[in-house]
Structures are given as C-alpha cells and as structure tokens.
C-alpha cells in the first residue's frame, strides 16, 4: 500500500470543507472500468489520498422484489437469477428451498447432488470472473483475459446441462430439471484440468508478482473486531481468522458427505483475501471432483409437486441461506396462502460490504488503489438494490 507524505497537509480539522480548497470531490463510477457493476463512489480527496467516501447505488434497480409479489412462484425464476449474474444458481437454489420448506416437500437424493454440483460450478465461474477483476484493478489485465475465457468454458458446460449459458434455471422446486447429457463427466474433467493449469499460471503471474504484492498488502485491513460490528461474512471474514462457513456450520444439500476444511488466514487485507479466494478455487475444483465421484448414478431427480401454475403455498415465513462466493446469501420468504408470494427478501452479502465496510476501509487510501480495494471486497451492486 502506497503511503503518502502527509507532513505538508496535517489533518487538524476533522470537518471537510470543500470551500477551503484543500479538498476535491470526484466521482468514480457508475461508468468506470474499475467499478464492479454499476455503482458510484463519491470520493473526497486531499491530494491523491481519499479522506471521505460514500457509496451510491440505484443505477441497476429493477425492482425484483416488487415484481415477485405480482408473479406466481414458478414465474419468479427468470427474475431471481438476474439478481446475481456471475452466480445465479445460489439464487435459484435458495428460492426453490424456501418454497420447499414452506410447503414441506422432500427432494430426492440425486437432486441434492445435482444441485450441489451446479452450486460449486457456479462458485468456480464466479471466482474466475472475480480474479480477473482483481488482477485488472492492479494493472494485470492479462489475467482477466485468461479467466474470462475459462469462465466461458464453464458456461458452455452449463449450456449443455441446462440450455442456458448465464441464467440456467436448472434448479426448480422439487428437484432439478434434467439428468446429465452424454459425456458430461469427461467434458467437465477436461475443463477442470484446464482451469488447474490456469490457476498455476495465475499464481506466478499474480501472487508472485512484486507489483501486486506491494500494492495489495496492508490495503484495507479488516480487523476481527469489525466483523460482528459490520456483519462481515464470507472470505472477507475468513481471511481475518474466523472459521465461519455455512457449508460446514449448517450443512445443506450434500455438503455433509463431502470432505473439505474451512480455509482461514490471519490478516484480512486485500492480498490475503485474494489469496484465500484463490485457494477456495482449488477447493472448489476438488469438491466438484468429489461430487462426481460420490454422486448416485441412478435415481429420481425430481419429486412430485402440485401444478406449478396454480400452486398455493401454505402461509408462513422462513429464512433460508447458503454460502455463496461472497458469504451468507439468504432468502426470506413470507407466504399468505395464495398463489403469489407475499414478500421475498433477498439478503446479499454485498449490502454491508459495499455500503458500510467500504467507506470505512477507504479512508487514507490512495485513489489508485481504490478500485483494487473495492474488488477485494467482492461487492456486487444488484444484491444491494435488487
């Protein structure tokens, strides 16, 4: 992290007055290559040092929660996957689980494994997209070119599995839509090997790179006291040494039968967060291999459900959650007994990371490192404004 010389501009007064001509206000975003999605940062600078930051959202608001109130449960599917573009399967899985929990449907064993597989595949795809952004924010654009290509390979697999590249809608209430296509396992293994090769290259290109190291280390340190105060979850919290992973703590789907450890590091700065996510990508590849090995080969993949066009869910409320790439992702669903959901609330981990944590971490950061800091929190605006 670049340390500016502050001796000429001692920060005596806490109040920032633009009329004193010591400060300048600039906007980073909403159209800026260093911004994740459409989010704007209102930055107050003293020289090239950030003294104050405010996050502005609202450029991507499509009113998903409102739209869902006027749609039948099955009609919500094309909506929910758009809440998180790199990782739509978490949304689909959580909506399906909320419906199943409220109406008391048990899904077949094979369906849980297929759902776990799509979750892990989308985790890998999402991390691949993120690591490109993280490297690009520190000037290593080549990594981004590689990883987006490899994400596309995974999207090709999703296309074979579900018919859709980005939005799959593969998980539906009661199970999943279909079985594997022919030769899916071999194709998947081939792409996993390709990705492993890529990850080895990224290690040399990015994590052994002196520029990346010097800029990312000590940037935006999250202390362990901050975690509960701000509600920080996911890799951001795990990098600070907290062993919290919903896949282990409250095992859902088939995660109980998979063999993996919660990865943690001691200090949550931008470099360590990136390093932890890099290791979680390896873990995800390992998990996909385990799933393919342990998955039952035959069996039902869809439970019997009522007619989805006229499905009345019993009244009640439930909160379901899953570990996404960014941490705890949850759906809170309230049903009033009709065909339409009364309320669906989507809890995205970016909400606190971007709106509360980022302004805190950005203080006294050089403006050149701001994009890297934001990407290292892995924020994603559609979760904030839904």
């Amino acid at each position, binding site marked *: 992290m670049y340390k500016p010389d502050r001796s000429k501009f001692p920060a005596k007064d806490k109040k920032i007055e633009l009329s004193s001509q010591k400060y300048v206000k600039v906007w980073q975003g909403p159209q800026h290559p260093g911004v994740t999605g459409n989010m704007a940062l209102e930055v107050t600078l003293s020289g090239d040092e950030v003294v104050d930051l405010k996050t502005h959202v609202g450029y991507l608001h499509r009113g998903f929660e409102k739209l869902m109130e006027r749609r039948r449960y099955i009609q919500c599917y094309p909506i929910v996957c758009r809440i998180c573009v790199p990782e739509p399967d978490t949304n689909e899985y959580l909506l399906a689980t909320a419906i199943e929990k409220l109406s008391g449907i048990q899904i077949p064993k094979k369906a849980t494994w297929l759902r776990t597989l799509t979750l892990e595949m989308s985790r890998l795809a999402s991390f691949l997209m993120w690591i490109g952004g993280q490297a690009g924010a520190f000037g290593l654009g080549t990594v981004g070119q590689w990883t987006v290509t490899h994400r596309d390979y995974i999207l090709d697999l999703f296309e074979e599995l579900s018919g859709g590249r980005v939005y799959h809608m593969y998980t539906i209430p009661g199970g999943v839509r279909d079985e594997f296509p022919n030769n899916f396992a071999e194709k998947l293994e081939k792409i996993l090997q390709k990705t492993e090769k890529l990850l080895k290259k990224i290690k040399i290109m990015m994590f052994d790179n002196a520029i990346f190291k010097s800029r990312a280390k000590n940037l935006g340190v999250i202390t362990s006291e901050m975690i509960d105060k701000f*509600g920080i979850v996911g890799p951001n919290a795990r990098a600070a040494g907290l062993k919290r992973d919903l896949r282990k703590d409250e095992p859902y789907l088939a995660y109980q039968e998979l063999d993996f450890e919660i990865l943690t590091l001691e200090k949550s700065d931008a470099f360590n967060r990136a390093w932890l996510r890099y290791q979680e990508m390896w873990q995800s590849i390992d998990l996909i291999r385990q799933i393919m090995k342990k998955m039952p080969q035959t069996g039902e993949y869809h439970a019997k459900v009522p007619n989805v066009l006229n499905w009345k869910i019993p009244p009640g*409320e439930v909160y379901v959650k899953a570990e996404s790439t960014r941490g705890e992702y949850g759906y809170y669903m309230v049903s009033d007994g009709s065909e339409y959901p009364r*309320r669906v609330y989507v809890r995205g981990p970016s909400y606190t990371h971007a*709106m*509360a944590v980022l302004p*805190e971490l950005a203080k006294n950061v050089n403006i050149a490192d701001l994009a890297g800091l934001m990407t290292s929190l892995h924020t994603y605006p559609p979760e904030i404004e839904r």
Partner: protein
Amino acid sequence: MENFIEKLKKLFSVTNVVHTKEKQVFLTVEAEKLPLLLTHLRDYENFTHFAFLTAVDWKEEEKFQLTYMLHNYNSNSDIGIRVFLDRQAPEMVSIHHLWKQVSTYQRELYEMFGIQFPGSPEVEEPMILEGWQEIPPMRREFDTKKYSEETYFPRSGRTTHDPKKHMKKKLYPEWNPILNENEDV
C-alpha cells in the same frame, strides 16, 4: 432452545413463537421492547451477527411487519424478531447504534415503505430512487403496471404485427395476395 424461549417470554413478553426449521425461530415483540431485546440478545445470548432488517406490508390488516434477523455463530441458530407497526403512521425506534450496517437498512425502508426511523443517520437521503415523487414503491397499493403505462410511452414510428399473421406472410409469400384479401385466414 426451549429454556431460552421461556426466558425471553418472561423478560420481554414475546408472543407468537414459531419454529420454522431446525435452529430457527420467529417471534413477535412490542415495538418499545425491541431495542432492549436486541441488546440483550447481542450482549448476553451471543446473537452477534445482524443478518438483515426488512418489512412486510399487511395492507388488509393495516399493519407493517418489520423483521429483524439475528444469528448466533456459536450455536448456529437464527432468531427472527417481528414487530408490527400501525400502517397509517409507521414509525420505529432506530437501532443504528447497535450495528453499523443497520442505518443503511433503515434508509432503504424509509425510501421503499415510508417507515420513519427518527435519529437514524442520513435516513432521508435518497438511496436508490433519486427524485421519486410517488408513494413509496414497495407498498402494496403501488401498481407497477399502471405506473409504467403512465410514465413510459411506446416509441413513435414503430409498427407492431400480429406474430401469427406476420409469420404466415413471411413464410408463405406466394399466398400473400390471398392472405391480404382475407385477413382472417
């Protein structure tokens, strides 16, 4: 869990306790007792993680339901706390001093449901809907279809075709004279 609920019943007179799934419970508390209950849960019962705060509109009963969701990392249990507000003058005690991210949730609720949170920092600043003039859009009476029909207009100069007729004309051009003569074909 049962002892814990009994204790909450005694201390905060919580009602309507529902176990929605394993290690998850929803309960109702009066609005005045909410800050006390949340502080108790955070400081003594280890519910340190604030997951979310949201509202549900029960228009038929003239009520707003606020749901506060807390999580305990030691026992991995969730507690959802419902608070019912009068829909005519919705106002709630702000709890922004307990967790840092709460003020953003309250800001969003003020904007989307019109629930007042006096004292919450920057609560009246628009978060998502800059320059919004209508009623708060997440309320049940706000009609999205009516709003879009009144606000947005179809672009002039564009013609629309009935897809069935259009495709017939496109696919069978030799039948076009007949199709044009008798539109019902």
